[in-house]
């Protein structure tokens, strides 16, 4: 007999049910995978706008005079390079250089940072970061009290302004975070996202989540905004080759293999994982994450399928699906470095047959091409 842990629900659970969302288990959370259709929701974000419930993600606050020093030791990127009111992508590494999580850091004050981490890693990350705490720095887990919604797509600035009823979007630069008066009170709004489109991530107290969600749906209706589930979130990020923890990133993959070297600051005197990554950098990076595109009419590639070259296995697909924009199969794969050459063809084993795919320069999909 196994005891089952009931799935966690975000404050938007009832809103998802009311909107006809199909709920699935995702990292222990009951989340909408789609409302209407993944393709429709995907195209809404590329052409107009969409909103996603991202309340399942974790939020930590690091503060204190030594908070920057603590984060620079604990994470791969350099937080000293983030101006107050801006943000940065970073990685939480193990000593062996493997990836424990990827995260976004918002500098909300000279000595205050907001960390947004993956839902599946909240408890593990908090424990790891607590163990790495040094000096006069504190770390707080606000994940349960903070909800968040991502508003994404070319119409998102217009939708945000319509909801706030004044010009707000133009005052938020790319990757910036501001505190803004809204119909849900004073909220943090960042111009960030996970779709490759312009857009915003809006944080709010859990108690305000439904009001925020319904307000944005209402304001977005004339702009063609659709509520979007995790299915579209996955195909959108795949088209622009954003990594997903548990797929492109894992304790067995280094950020150098994943192509995230620019988010690792080797200039810093020390950080967890530095020695192992330096060693790998000098010895040669054994594998690379590549983007792949299939020919029309071939079956979509899926995570776990083997990648072959002249009958020899050279790696495996880490994420794969049908690209709603290209209308062909697309994938990211971790392959031997020697084979990771854009323009070259590889074979994907699908149900016992080889299906050719081409290695492409990332991203898989570019706007207006």
């Amino acid at each position, binding site marked *: 007999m196994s005891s089952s842990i009931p799935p966690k629900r975000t404050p938007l659970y009832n809103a998802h049910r009311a909107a006809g969302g199909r709920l699935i288990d995702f990292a222990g959370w009951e989340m909408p995978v789609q409302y209407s259709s993944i393709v429709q929701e995907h195209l809404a974000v590329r052409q107009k706008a969409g909103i996603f419930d991202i309340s399942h993600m974790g939020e930590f606050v690091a503060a204190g005079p030594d908070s920057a020093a603590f984060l620079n030791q604990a994470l791969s990127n350099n937080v000293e390079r983030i101006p107050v009111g801006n943000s940065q992508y970073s990685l939480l590494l193990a000593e062996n250089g493997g990836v424990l999580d990827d995260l976004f850091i918002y500098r909300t004050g000279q000595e205050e940072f907001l960390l947004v981490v993956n839902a599946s890693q909240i408890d593990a990350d908090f424990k790891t970061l607590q163990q790495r705490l040094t000096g006069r720095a504190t770390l707080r887990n606000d994940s349960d009290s903070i909800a968040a919604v991502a508003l994404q797509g070319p119409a998102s600035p217009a939708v945000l302004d319509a909801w706030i009823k004044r010009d707000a979007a133009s005052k938020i630069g790319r990757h910036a975070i501001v505190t803004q008066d809204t119909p849900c009170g004073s909220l943090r709004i960042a111009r960030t996202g996970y779709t490759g489109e312009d857009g915003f991530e809006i944080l709010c107290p859990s108690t305000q989540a439904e009001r925020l969600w319904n307000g944005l749906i209402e304001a977005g209706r004339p702009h063609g905004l659709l509520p979007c589930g995790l*299915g579209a979130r996955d195909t959108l990020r795949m088209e622009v080759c954003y990594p997903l923890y548990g797929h492109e990133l894992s304790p067995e993959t280094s950020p150098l293999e994943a192509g995230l070297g620019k988010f690792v600051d080797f200039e810093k005197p020390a950080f967890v994982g530095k020695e192992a990554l330096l060693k790998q950098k000098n010895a040669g990076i054994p594998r690379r994450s590549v983007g792949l595109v299939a020919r029309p009419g071939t079956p979509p590639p899926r995570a776990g399928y083997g990648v072959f070259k002249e009958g020899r296995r050279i790696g495996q697909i880490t994420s794969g699906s049908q690209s*709603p924009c290209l209308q062909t199969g697309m994938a990211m794969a971790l392959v031997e470095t020697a084979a990771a050459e854009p323009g070259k063809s590889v074979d994907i084993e699908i149900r016992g047959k080889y299906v050719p795919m081409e290695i492409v320069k990332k991203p898989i999909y570019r706007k207006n091409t």
Partner: protein
Amino acid sequence: MSIPNDLKFAASHEWVRMEGDIATVGISDHAQKELTDIVFVELPSAGRQVEAGKECAVVESVKAASDIYAPVSGEITASNDELTANPALANTDPYGKGWFFKVKLANKAELDKLLDPAAYGKSIGE
């Protein structure tokens, strides 16, 4: 959910339409709604022997690949090339242009094991 009266159904959501001893097979409206966004099908070729309850085709949505099971045993006499070229037909016209394949029935008694429209409707909570 649309469930035509003249069809029989497998619990695994395939439908069967009989004409003489030829069974035309497709997937139900309920199944296509569950899958949504069907982007690829792999159908059995004419001449292949299929066995009731065994997988014989594949349907892929944006999200995942699913097996299609032969609702009856027999020899494949035709598969729907139009569906292979345009898999979305399984979404837009599941009981018409979205048919998958035709089987020459080996054992008529197998039809009695399939669900009538009312029983199928009940099985999907209608």
